């Protein structure tokens, strides 16, 4: 049976572990920052001198760290895109806007071990020559914002922040910025607009790649809370050591949030890819409730395409001779990592599993998610603004006894016409994927619901009791 591997949450749940700086320092806190600041410049054989920041950036690239917010993009690569020649200031923003339904991992870090994230953030800022950085925390985390402000003050008092940090000559200031209830602020360009004091309308790319034209049209890095914590550990143990954790191309650990119909919902930190979906459900989260069967799993936050129980996938695997061999894998046997889930047509996204057993009304479940997306569409692009609302209205109707048998196809037609370059940001995809996958994989249930409602109406009956 696989075990949890607690790297980031190593101390968070220990009895007596508190979010204050003294406790953090007793547990080796800010040692990685000291180490980072003390890295000596290295002279290459060709005479080129590589400073500490660049060495850290190289190490992060070597570590293979992929972003923990949702897209799973290489952190080292993201940093390498930063325009360092523009002469403009470089900003770093910690994305603490944890809003993807199903996800509750950053909450644990922010509330229980804020200094770990701050240390990772200071190191990341140092590595990228950032002098001013922000933590964008969602408005619904007022306690989290207070904890962070307290922690930043403590760090300032100990000179981990501010002018001439620990005598290194490096200056950095970090401020907390609160959101106000809009999911779209988790999208990095929307977040940047919001931080500029505007509506969180995502920006079009090109030209507004944050690494070149981000906050105040300056080069900007946006990294997730958990990603920044990982940076601290990369500096602490070295990128090569970090890369040994997890599986190739899916390195390090990941905090997986498991919710829904399991006996022990919660967050479980694993080496990436070292546990399967089935193990996460059955071994970590205690399995399904008594007498229940699995119906569906959303594997990476609500935007990820749903998996149906019993679904099989053909995955390519390297054989002993180095050649690709195709292997049939049951959904439950998929290793929980970035690449396997992508190969299976979904994604590990924000690392959140939502488990649904056979008591779930699949139409109502999708109606719930679609209502979320209709509420959260920023309204900038017509296909997304209108489409998300149409889908939600149709599903609301279906969930309340007013379905039609053609609704399944109607929903698919709308969902197919939102994503694929028709919208500025990936919200178009995010609102369509649940509809495409739920209706696509459980089509018989959607059609049956519509037919039953039609038959009932034809017989002159009013709404059924479930509405």
């Amino acid at each position: 049976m696989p075990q949890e591997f607690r790297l980031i949450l190593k101390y968070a749940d220990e009895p007596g572990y508190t979010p204050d700086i003294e406790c953090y320092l007793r547990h080796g806190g800010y040692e990685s920052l000291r180490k980072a600041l003390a890295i000596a410049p290295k002279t290459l054989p060709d005479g080129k001198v590589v400073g500490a920041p660049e060495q850290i950036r190289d190490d992060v690239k070597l570590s293979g760290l992929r972003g923990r917010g949702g897209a799973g993009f290489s952190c080292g690569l993201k940093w390498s895109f930063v325009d360092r020649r523009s002469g403009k200031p470089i900003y770093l923003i910690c994305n603490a806007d944890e809003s993807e339904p199903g996800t509750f991992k950053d909450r644990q870090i922010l509330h229980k071990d804020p200094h770990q994230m701050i240390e990772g953030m200071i190191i990341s800022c140092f590595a990228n020559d950032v002098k001013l950085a922000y933590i964008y925390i969602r408005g619904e985390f007022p306690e989290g914002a207070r904890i962070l402000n307290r922690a930043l003050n403590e760090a300032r008092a100990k000179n981990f922040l501010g002018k001439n940090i620990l005598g290194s000559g490096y200056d950095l200031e970090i401020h907390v910025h609160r959101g106000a209830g809009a999911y779209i602020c988790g999208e990095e360009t929307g977040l940047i607009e919001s931080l500029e004091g505007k509506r969180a309308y995502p920006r079009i790319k090109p030209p507004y790649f944050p690494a070149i034209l981000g906050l105040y049209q300056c080069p900007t890095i946006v990294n997730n809370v958990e990603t920044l914590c990982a940076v601290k550990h990369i500096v602490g143990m070295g990128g090569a050591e970090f890369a040994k954790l997890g599986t190739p191309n899916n390195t390090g650990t990941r905090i997986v949030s498991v919710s829904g119909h399991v006996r022990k919902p919660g967050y479980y930190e694993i080496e990436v890819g070292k546990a399967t979906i089935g193990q996460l459900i059955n071994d970590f989260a205690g399995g399904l409730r008594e007498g229940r069967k699995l119906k569906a799993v959303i594997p990476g936050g609500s935007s990820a395409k749903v998996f149906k129980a019993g679904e099989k996938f053909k995955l390519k695997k390297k054989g002993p001779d180095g050649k690709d061999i195709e292997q049939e894998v049951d959904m439950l046997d998929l290793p929980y990592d970035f690449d396997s889930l992508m190969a299976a047509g979904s994604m590990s996204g924000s690392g959140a599993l939502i488990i649904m057993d056979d008591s779930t009304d699949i139409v109502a479940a999708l109606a719930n998610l679609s209502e979320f997306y209709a509420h959260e569409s920023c309204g900038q692009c017509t296909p997304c603004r209108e489409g998300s609302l149409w889908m939600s209205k149709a599903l609301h109707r279906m969930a309340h006894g007013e379905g039609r048998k053609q609704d399944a196809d109607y929903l698919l037609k709308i969902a197919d016409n939102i994503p694929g370059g028709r919208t500025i940001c990936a919200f178009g995809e995010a609102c369509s994927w649940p509809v495409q996958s739920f209706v696509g994989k459980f089509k018989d249930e959607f059609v049956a619901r519509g037919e039953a409602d039609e038959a009932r109406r034809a017989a002159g009956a009013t709404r059924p009791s479930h509405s």
Partner: protein
Amino acid sequence: MAFSVPANLEAEITELISHYPQKRSASLMILHAVQEHFGWISQEAVEWIAARLELQPINVYELVTFYPMFRREPAGKHVVKVCRTLSCALGGSHELHGHVCQKLGLDAHAHGLQTTADGKFSVEFVECLASCGTAPVMMCNEDFHQAVTAAKADEILGKCA
């Protein structure tokens, strides 16, 4: 009477503005501070903030209408937010929301924030509060509550003076 803010709030706002290289960035944080003090964002408050940040009132008003947490009318003394989204729904949040509404004499099917006639409570069914593992969850003012049963909800409401 002209809109004015007390000295401590004014000082807080000045401090917030100093956190950013561009004043406009402070608008969300100032809206939070103003709403915390007055309970809602009035038209006068919008105009005052805009003037303070050298913006047009529309630049502030469009934030109030965009971001769900800002209110354009006063709310009840205690604001209850029950999470509506999938994991909480699977864990019974509709029953919880229905229970809270029924107890307070509110309509569980109404959209948006609704307030009791005596102005003591406002209830809102909100989107994911990011604690899906302890569903159903709710907030009462700034306090966060997990795995809320009907009995626990009664207790939380009962403690609101």
